[in-house]
């Protein structure tokens, strides 16, 4: 789960990381009131789950309440990479002397988290990594011991950061504590600002929480915003499917992540493009398959459907029953090509034999047929 900047800062603050005062506004009037309250220069920042807000015009300085009203009016409702801005963070501006980068990223190569620190702050760290990798100091954290202050101080020195060493190290340790304490998979402060008066402050932050660990962070559940997700993805989650909306026109349903991924590849190979990834999971019953077909049929982008099942724990006849129910209820209203193999395939074929459903012996043949039909 991705957190908004203001949520990430709230979380960091609860671990003792200094952040600039800020509040959320959903209307220009609210923005004005907050700016008036701070009676200082403020930054109006779009809260959307995409990078590059600044470049898109989603971050603006406001000199007073009236200016904050105007800037918030310009940003609210703005479309940034397909997402509509529904709220802005109105934060007290900080007097920047230095801008640094400090981030924790789950790094499978070191089987832990890598702490990355750089003097090149306030910019896209991936760009720095690509153009000037030497500007980033890296440190693999022991997942059991965590990040200790003496290690953080050494990294700050190695990276050449200037400023109060103890405060900088405390911020890094605070970031680690927030990351480990909330099961984040990514936690970054960018920029980590040294102010003109020597304070160390997290001027922007980004945190992603591990969905698998949400069961032990029920407090963070309040941060979830289903409106930010694709409506079909929200519905799929309720059914327990692993579903990803894609930008093609062939709906793909299968069992097992690897098999579904391979099905997407095969659709591309024969000249089509998948509209979604949908894994019904292991041991799916007819009801689940029926719901999967129903969901995919709801997507207006879908011009044809490929169902690719290799029965292991999942029984092919259960899949057939689900598809037949969708067909008989008139829900299945798009061309379908199906391939079933493995456990209970004979029973499945028996159920499907008199039905107007096209069955193919291989996923390649099924994909070819549905891509051709969808093009018509």
């Amino acid at each position, binding site marked *: 789960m991705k957190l908004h900047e203001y949520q990430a800062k709230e979380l960091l603050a609860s671990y003792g990381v200094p952040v600039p005062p800020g509040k959320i506004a959903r209307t220009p009037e609210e923005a004005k009131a907050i700016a008036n309250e701070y009676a200082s220069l403020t930054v109006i920042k779009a809260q959307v789950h995409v990078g590059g807000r600044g470049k898109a015009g989603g971050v603006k300085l406001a000199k007073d309440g009236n200016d904050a009203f105007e800037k918030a009016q310009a940003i609210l409702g703005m479309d940034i990479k397909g997402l509509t801005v529904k709220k802005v963070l109105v934060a007290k501006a900080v007097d920047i002397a230095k801008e640094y980068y400090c981030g924790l990223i*789950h790094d*499978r*190569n070191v*089987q*832990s*988290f890598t702490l990355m620190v750089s003097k090149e702050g306030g910019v896209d760290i*991936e760009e720095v*990594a*690509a153009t000037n990798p030497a500007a980033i100091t890296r440190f693999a954290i*022991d*997942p*059991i011991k965590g990040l200790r202050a003496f290690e953080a101080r050494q990294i700050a020195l190695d990276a050449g950061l200037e400023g109060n060493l103890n405060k900088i190290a405390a911020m890094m340790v605070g970031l680690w504590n927030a990351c*480990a304490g909330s*099961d984040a*998979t990514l936690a970054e402060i960018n920029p980590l600002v040294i102010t003109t008066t020597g304070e160390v402050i997290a001027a922007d932050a980004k945190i992603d929480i*591990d969905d*698998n*660990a949400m*069961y*032990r962070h029920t407090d963070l559940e309040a941060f979830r915003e289903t409106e930010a997700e694709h409506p079909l993805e929200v519905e799929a989650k309720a059914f327990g499917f*692993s579903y*990803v909306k*894609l930008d093609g026109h062939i709906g793909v349903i*299968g*069992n*097992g*992540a*690897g*098999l*579904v*991924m*391979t099905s*997407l*590849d*095969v*659709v*591309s*190979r024969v000249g089509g*493009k*998948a509209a979604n*990834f949908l*894994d019904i999971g*292991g041991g799916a019953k007819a009801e689940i398959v029926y719901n999967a077909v129903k969901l995919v049929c709801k997507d207006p982008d879908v011009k044809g459907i490929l169902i690719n099942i*290799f*029965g*292991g*724990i999942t029984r092919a006849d259960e899949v057939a029953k689900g598809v037949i129910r969708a067909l008989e209820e008139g829900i299945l209203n798009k061309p379908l090509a199906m391939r079933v*193999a*493995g*456990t209970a395939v004979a029973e499945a074929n028996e159920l499907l034999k008199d039905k107007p459903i096209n069955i193919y012996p*291989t*996923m*390649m043949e099924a994909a070819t047929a549905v891509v051709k039909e969808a093009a018509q």
Partner: protein
Amino acid sequence: MSILINKNTKVLVQGITGREGAYHAEKMLEYGTQIVAGSTPGKGGQTLSLLGKTIPVYNSVSEAKAAHPDLDASIIFVPPPAAADATLEAAHAGIPLIVNIAEGMPVFDMMKVVKELKSLPNVRLIGGNCPGLITPGECKLGIMPASTFKAGRVGMISRSGTLTYEASAMLAAADIGCSTVVGIGGDPMIGTTFIDLLPMFNEDPNTDAVVMIGEIGGADEEQAAEWISKNMKKPVIAFISGRTAPKGKRMGHAGALIMGNVGTAESKLEAMAKANVPVADTMEDIIILTKKALGL
């Protein structure tokens, strides 16, 4: 005829009194796997009757190990939040081979397990989020459907469960069997990966070739390619799933995620080409390339 497990492997089932544990324990017994004990905290002293066999249940893995010192392996059927603990319990009780099938373990849990296991070099963990492993005709230590596997001389290592079943079934249809098939799991952090298993197949006198099924995400395939180019004496056939998946989207498996420029299919295909490992473009090609490698 195998690596890691064979007809003599003595197995403990952790979580044997649960629905999944009991179901799969029975399926494994049916296949011929020697299940000698089970464990469930608080259910010690009970027995379970499976296929006419009486299986004793212990409160802990160490109790089970004390009663059955010849235990070689454990397979874990507990919910994801308890899986890390169950894995460490088995490791500290001295079980040399642990299979963890749980899907949905928190990253932090697995990170700590992997770190702690480094201090226990005699313990090998397979998974999580995997179907387990099978030496066809001898031992099934997992949840895979038995019928798709045929005994033979091809080793297989795969990040995907269903593709493992599919590839094995296609090989079997072409009359090619497998020595051992290992599903290593689809999570970003796993106990055993390609480079841990390739050396074992390389030394196994009963394996003639290895099929490795990789996918987008991480750099395990790249590391494997490098190892193969330097050390592998036997032919390897690779398959990479998710070639058309977009960046930044998790494709079902937690580990199937391209982050920035890391984990792309292009990088994996390039590494394989550099190591002279033939890559199958389709599942059908796996069979064609395997036949070619075996001189069939």
